[in-house]
């Protein structure tokens, strides 16, 4: 298929740093297909950055980082003994290996089919938004409705978690699933309103238009919407202080209580993957997307690099919350979600309309 190779080569990611190597590899018969496929823009966006590869990198570092930060605040050491010279970063890999070789127990009362397939299915709503999140020239699908579609796809993740809680057929899992459902309604509406406010402000749902219009970062244009979005992110990824559905001291990881082995490994990372997606969305909406200092040698890799870096730094900062705040009760969180956060999300829409109507924004 010579035509296929040409199509891919024409639409390849151009990185001056590795271009000589790519040129050499493209002359080798079989490897040229692999290299061209990986560097093909849609595949590169989904598989490497900001897609699967970046997610894996984030998972590796953020879990370690969070454990390490919490440990330092609590006067412990945290993961260290695995790969001591680099401060125990490989601990996550070691945990992953352990999960992989541990027996997966499906208990008698569980709905075995759903119980096993749901953690795997959960990757669909995690990976599908990646298709729509562009990083400058590296993107898979460009659409005017990308932002609403991303929000809609991310909103599917709690449905999977609730289904997991149901399939586990355990009282803790059931309580966790119910809590997840309650929280879902509490944060999803303010989250959608905050996104809506930014879409009103920029007048488009296309990430390219949104990033282009952000000569001033969105967080300065509409800080209320940014605050709403950040609180909703914390709620949505069930992090402390809103770690209510999982609450390991109360209901022992809630919907995930019956999972073991690699299935637990999959569901445990779900919250972090969701956090990554929402950080990317936050970066595009509020932090200027892939705008950044130009680094010519990176070429097409530069926009995804900046997008990833901004999202990643946001994740690193949000990890601190675990050691600062205690967990809210469900009723407290619901009260906050339905009253003050909903109120400020509506205010943020008003601010956006005011900004647009007074013509502050070009």
């Amino acid at each position, binding site marked *: 298929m010579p035509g296929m190779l040409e199509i891919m080569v024409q639409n390849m990611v151009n990185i001056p740093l590795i271009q000589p190597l790519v040129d050499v590899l493209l002359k080798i018969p079989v490897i040229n297909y692999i290299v061209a496929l990986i560097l093909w823009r849609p595949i590169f966006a989904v598989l490497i950055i900001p897609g699967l590869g970046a997610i894996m990198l984030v998972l590796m570092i953020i879990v370690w980082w969070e454990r390490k930060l919490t440990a*330092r605040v609590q006067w412990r050491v945290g993961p260290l003994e695995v790969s001591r010279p680099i401060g125990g970063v490989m601990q996550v890999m070691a945990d992953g290996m352990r999960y992989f070789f541990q027996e997966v127990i499906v208990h008698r009362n569980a709905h075995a089919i759903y119980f096993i397939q749901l953690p795997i299915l959960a990757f669909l709503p995690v990976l599908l938004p990646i298709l729509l999140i562009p990083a400058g020239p590296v993107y898979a699908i460009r659409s005017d409705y990308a932002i609403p579609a991303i929000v809609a796809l991310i909103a599917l993740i709690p449905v999977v978690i609730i289904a997991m809680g149901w399939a586990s057929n355990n009282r803790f899992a059931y309580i966790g699933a119910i809590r997840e459902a309650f929280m879902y309604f509490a944060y999803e509406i303010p989250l959608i309103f905050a996104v809506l406010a930014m879409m009103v402000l920029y007048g488009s749902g296309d990430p390219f238009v949104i990033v282009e219009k952000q000569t001033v970062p969105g967080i300065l244009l509409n800080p209320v919407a940014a605050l709403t979005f950040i609180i909703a992110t914390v709620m949505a990824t069930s992090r402390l202080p809103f770690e209510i559905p999982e609450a390991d001291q109360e209901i022992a990881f809630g919907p995930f209580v019956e999972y073991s082995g690699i299935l637990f490994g999959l569901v445990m990372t779900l919250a972090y993957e969701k956090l990554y997606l929402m950080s990317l969305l936050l970066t595009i909406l509020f932090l200027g997307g892939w705008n950044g200092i130009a680094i010519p040698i990176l070429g097409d890799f530069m926009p995804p690099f900046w997008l990833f870096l901004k999202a990643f730094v946001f994740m690193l900062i949000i990890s601190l919350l675990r050691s600062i705040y205690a967990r809210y009760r469900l009723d407290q969180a619901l009260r906050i979600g339905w009253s003050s956060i909903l109120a400020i999300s509506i205010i943020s829409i008003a601010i956006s309309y005011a900004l647009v109507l007074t013509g502050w924004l070009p």
Partner: protein
Amino acid sequence: MKKIKAEKLGLTESVKRHLEAIGVVVGEVIVPSTITIHYPRERRKLPDNFRGLILFDSKACISCFRCAHICPANAIVMEHRIAYFPSIDYAKCIFCHFCVDSCPTGALRPTKIHDFVYKDMDEMVVHSEEMVETPEIVREDSFTVEYVFDGDVQLVKKKEKEELVPEVKPPERPPKVAAALNPENCISCRLCVAACPTFAISAKEEKTKIILEINVDRCTACSICNKICPTSTLGLVDR
């Protein structure tokens, strides 16, 4: 029913408290005020009289049995080697170091070695010849850590390796010495000569009676001669 409500705070006050909490956490992340000692890589600075593993010097031992007598756990048994030397059963030892304190010649010495293991119970009975050499220690530490109790507890780290076998001065000899207090009682049995662990007593025959000579330099005032003498000839006098 009494309902407890959260304290009502104004906006500025609650924002201030949030910022304070965030500040504390950020500060702890940057410089954690932990007081944990990372043991194999750091060692706590121990005093020179730390009650650790006991070392033995067979040249100084006078077989006075005081260590065996005083041991509250009955861990010390005197075994016959050249003379009677102590063996310590570390399964029984409670590390009170009464033996070290009671040793009149400093033959038993304290060390700061507190991390030693044995493979089985039989091995825990350490004989005198095994106590002479300092055991081989795998040192992973490069820091010596010290707690400073000045207001808040603080941890002071120094990049130095501590010597685990401190130099201990042998105890001062008691200001007493054995002497023949009642020479007229002597029946020339020479039990004292045989019993003296430091060979300080010698007997010189003179016609029908013997004269006991006591080497004052060698005498440790252990009073074994005093106890063994059937006729209370010997006693202790001031030096």
